């Protein structure tokens, strides 16, 4: 039987395969592995030096898109132009900060013939760092206590309640573990300038870091759940190596989340398992993680399943995956020509 997905044209963001990588390249790798090399991949980039732009064996063509702060009209205009050139079948956004806009224009994209598989704005809001504690209390999840910080002075109350160490987190990205008030103030200013307020001060939970990659079907279930234990963590707290693990408690947790939210699309749960075995939800990211290729390697190709679901095909939930699949990330100096950089910088296309 012919592979009906082999000639699709799929647009993907998150080509920033750097030391704090976006998920785009892992998503593309998963899709190519499932659907074959004829799949046409259109990269959507924000900056001219996102490595994926220059990985021409994985990304057929890249177009620069406007930053989320430029609003939905600018994004829709740009995607309309790209669609005219490429006839896109599906778009997979991979950044938290761009999701609001993509969700908003999803109906127009649908009319244009571009499929998506995204959560609603309400679902996006449930798991927002600002609302996570409240969400946890309502649905009986363990979530560390937090304080919303609108000014540096608000740190006083947070440190009185939680002591040090303390997690200071940006609204969208970045988290710092701080041990002194000076460090906390510095982190607050850095995060508020980058991501705006509130900055979140979160109680520090000691334990084992586990991440879960999952794909919600939008009807209260998960099509796939794969758990990973971090084995090597960078200074920014990102997994540089990890191994798939299988524990029913982790699968149940993701299933409870899907049931509570009817989540639609990929998501990642960041979990801390403390010495009593309690699973604390530190964050829920509303898109696939950068390590999502490990789901394909372990037997549950989540990006490929998302594509099928976005195209309204029936996808049976995966039932099993291989524990003990290891990933070790590496860096690699890819060589390109200055003319490629020039083309991308000047014309916004390569």
């Amino acid at each position, binding site marked *: 039987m012919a592979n009906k997905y082999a000639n699709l044209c799929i647009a993907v963001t998150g080509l920033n395969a750097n030391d704090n990588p976006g998920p785009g390249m892992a998503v593309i790798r998963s899709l190519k592995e499932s659907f074959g090399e004829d799949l046409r991949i259109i990269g959507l980039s924000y900056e001219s030096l996102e490595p994926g732009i220059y990985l021409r064996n994985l990304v057929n063509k890249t177009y620069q898109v406007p930053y989320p702060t430029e609003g939905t009209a600018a994004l829709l205009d740009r995607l309309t132009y790209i669609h005219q050139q490429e006839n896109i079948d599906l778009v997979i956004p991979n950044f938290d900060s761009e999701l609001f806009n993509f969700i908003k224009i999803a109906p127009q994209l649908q009319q244009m013939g571009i499929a998506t598989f995204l959560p609603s704005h309400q679902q996006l809001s449930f798991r927002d760092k600002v609302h996570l504690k409240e969400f946890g209390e309502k649905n009986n999840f363990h979530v560390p206590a937090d304080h919303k910080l609108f000014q540096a002075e608000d740190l006083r109350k947070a440190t009185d309640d939680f002591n040090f160490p303390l997690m200071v987190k940006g609204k969208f990205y970045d988290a710092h573990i701080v041990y002194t008030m000076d460090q906390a103030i510095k982190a607050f200013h850095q995060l508020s300038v980058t991501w705006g307020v509130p900055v979140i001060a979160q109680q520090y939970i000691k334990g*084992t870091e*586990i991440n879960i990659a999952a794909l919600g079907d939008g009807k209260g279930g998960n099509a796939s759940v794969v758990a*990973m*234990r971090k*084995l090597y963590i960078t200074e920014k707290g990102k997994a540089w190596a*990890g*191994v798939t*693990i*299988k*524990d029913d408690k982790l699968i149940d947790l993701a299933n409870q989340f899907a049931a509570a939210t009817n989540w639609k699309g990929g998501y990642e749960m960041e979990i801390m398992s403390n010495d009593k075995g309690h699973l604390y939800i530190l964050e829920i990211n509303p898109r696939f993680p950068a390590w999502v290729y490990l789901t394909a390697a372990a037997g549950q190709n989540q990006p490929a399943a998302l594509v099928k679901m976005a195209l309204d095909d029936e996808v049976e939930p995966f039932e099993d995956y291989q*524990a*003990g699949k290891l990933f070790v990330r590496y860096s690699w100096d890819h060589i390109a020509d200055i003319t490629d950089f020039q083309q991308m910088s000047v014309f916004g296309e390569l």
Partner: protein
Amino acid sequence: MKIKSNIATSENGFIFNPATGDSFSGNTMAAALLLAMKSGKTEREIKQEILDRYDVKADQLNRDWEDWMIQLKEANLLELEG
């Protein structure tokens, strides 16, 4: 005391707990003991095999066995009894 059924062990002493991601490196004696425990042999049978094969007194073996159990428990490799 039983080793958790899902624990993966290799002949060279590598132990992987697929529920937690913990891994350990054991020596050849640890590998042999784990293999024997996973095969369903009782404590008594395993101890008898050691006594038959090695030059060790029963008292010393019992003390070492207790120590081995503590290590397995701390590593979360034993089935909870009850």
